[in-house]
């Protein structure tokens, strides 16, 4: 990858945007502006930013309920994401989805799925459609280590490999499926090895280093576009915060969390590129977030008369 200081600054800026955005979400949650479940991406920013860098605007992205960072990195505006969490019509899903269900047609961001592994079959189908219609497009499906225990994971990897579909499976292995650690959930904890059993290209990478993620994704996407079938990337990472806002974190040691914080993706990048102008980005991002909050605050609540909209498509004249 042609890595220069401009790109490093861009990566830093995007990761910082996610970090500060998530911190603002916590604050707004405690003020009861945001409700429902809220899953933070803090600690995992390198994956979304590195990953999205390697995609074209035409590629499709499917994500999980911990997807604010991926939506931001994909180019969904902070304003529309914040408005979504406020339940306002200006939200990217018109207030129907909330934190866990961010959707954006323009950037081909297909959610926001809160059923663990539930989006993998969809990704297989999207890629199948692209293959059938001979479109040179990649579908990226992001999920956590918890998904690997689900049947849909195995069914989907099998189909994708069997039919050589253009899918990039990205496993964000943060070592815990909610409060259950990987070794308490998997007989084989090497997830890349597990995926390789389906005879697809499978690699384990450092998910705390945005440059490494970007390089690995560029490589994988090139292979997929070449037609060699799906690729599985296991990104080793860690979530610095609790699973959701209802998690007392009884299942992991504080020392473990502190150890991983030494690998903070922002620090890792700064160590490689010490000249990044941090304060410039802090200021810019503070204003983006302030604007997003302002936008959400001033957004509109949908009329209850419209409650039953979006259950079926509007009648199409035949």
């Amino acid at each position: 990858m042609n890595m220069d200081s401009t790109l490093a600054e861009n990566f830093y800026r995007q990761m910082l945007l996610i970090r500060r955005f998530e911190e603002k979400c916590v604050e707004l949650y405690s003020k009861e502006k945001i409700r429902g479940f809220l899953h933070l991406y803090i600690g995992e920013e390198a994956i979304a930013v590195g990953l999205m860098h390697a995609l074209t605007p035409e590629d499709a992205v499917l994500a999980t309920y911990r997807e604010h960072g991926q939506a931001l990195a994909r180019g969904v505006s902070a304003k529309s994401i914040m408005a979504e969490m406020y339940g306002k019509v200006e939200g990217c899903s018109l207030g129907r989805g909330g934190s866990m269900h961010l959707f954006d047609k323009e950037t081909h961001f297909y959610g926001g799925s809160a059923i663990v592994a539930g989006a993998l079959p969809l990704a297989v189908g999207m890629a199948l459609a692209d293959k059938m219609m001979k479109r040179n497009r990649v579908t990226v499906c992001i999920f956590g280590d918890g998904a690997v225990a689900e049947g849909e994971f195995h069914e989907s990897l099998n189909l994708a490999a069997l039919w050589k579909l253009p899918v990039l499976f990205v496993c964000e292995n943060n070592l815990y499926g909610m409060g259950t650690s990987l070794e308490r959930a998997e007989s084989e904890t090497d997830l890349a090895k597990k995926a390789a059993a389906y005879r697809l290209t499978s690699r384990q990478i450092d998910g705390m280093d945005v440059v490494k993620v970007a390089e690995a994704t560029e490589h994988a996407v090139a292979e997929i576009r070449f037609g060699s079938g799906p690729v599985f990337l296991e990104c080793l990472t860690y979530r610095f915060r609790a699973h959701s806002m209802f998690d007392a974190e009884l299942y992991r040691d504080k020392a473990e969390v502190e150890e991983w914080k030494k690998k903070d993706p922002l620090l890792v990048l700064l160590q490689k590129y010490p000249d990044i102008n941090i304060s410039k980005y802090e200021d810019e991002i503070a204003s983006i977030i302030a604007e997003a909050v302002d936008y959400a605050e001033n957004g509109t609540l949908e009329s209850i008369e419209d409650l039953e909209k979006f259950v079926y498509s509007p009648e199409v004249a035949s």
Partner: protein
Amino acid sequence: MSTTITYREAVRQAIREAMEKDERVFLIGEDVGRYGGAFAVSMGLLKIFGEERILDTPLSESAFTGAGIGAALNGMRPIVEIMTVNFSLLALDQIMNNAATLLHMSGGQFNVPLVIRMVTGGGKQLAAQHSHSLEGWYAHIPGLKVLTPATVQDAYDMVNLALADPDPVLVFENALLYNTKGSLDTDAAVLPIGKAKTERTGKDITILAYGISVFKALEAAEILSSEGIDAEVIDLRSLRPLDDEAIMASVRKTHRVMIVDEGWKSGSISAEIMARINEQAFFELDAPMGRVCTVEVPIPYAAHLEHAALPQADKIVAMARKILEES
């Protein structure tokens, strides 16, 4: 032009014509290709369209149903075939949590123009994991449409109606109907989704039915007719949406109503229909409503037990007489 063909051939013809007309349509499911379909519906289609459009899948209902949803999201018009409604439970997550919700969760951005066909119903001595009628369950779910073709004409039309719909449509084909013959007119005006059809007009009692039960109701109506009871038989055709208008119009005419439903009574579509009549036409009724449903047991293997479990013409006749006696 009108021809006489089997229900199976009608479904196959509709799929074949749709695939000839629209390159976005494809068939995906277990053994739909080389085997020719578990119930031989897709026999011969592989030869015409090839492996790229007639997709045999591994035994993975969740993945191939979800793949259908994903392909639908991405511009295709997939027809997913699930061998039986019992097996569809392995794909229930995809049907309920994705197909039925994506349009809503995305604020109207992503619709799912998907057709899922599956076999339903008992009567083949296939016991308790192949014989159930769970279409009423699916009718519970906002975001889905549930069709139950009974006639050869509907077996054909409903494939097209489902494919033309912008949202997920589930089509339930009763396995015992596949060999029935009937007339198909491909030029006839198509009755839309959500419209019931009166199969027999009558003035004394309304019998509401769907799928194979329509024929049992018609058989019962003939017996009742010999006793001087003039029954109206309505084929519901669609369980979601239900044609409230047609149901209430018939209730207002006959003032007596019963429902034949191959699902179990508890929490069934027949219960829903009774509730709607209660809400919308209670004062039109001259007698308590009645229904003939499957006895509340998992479907047994032994032929006589299975026969006794399912709705049959004699039970329908008995229920109709009872309602008339009570009014």
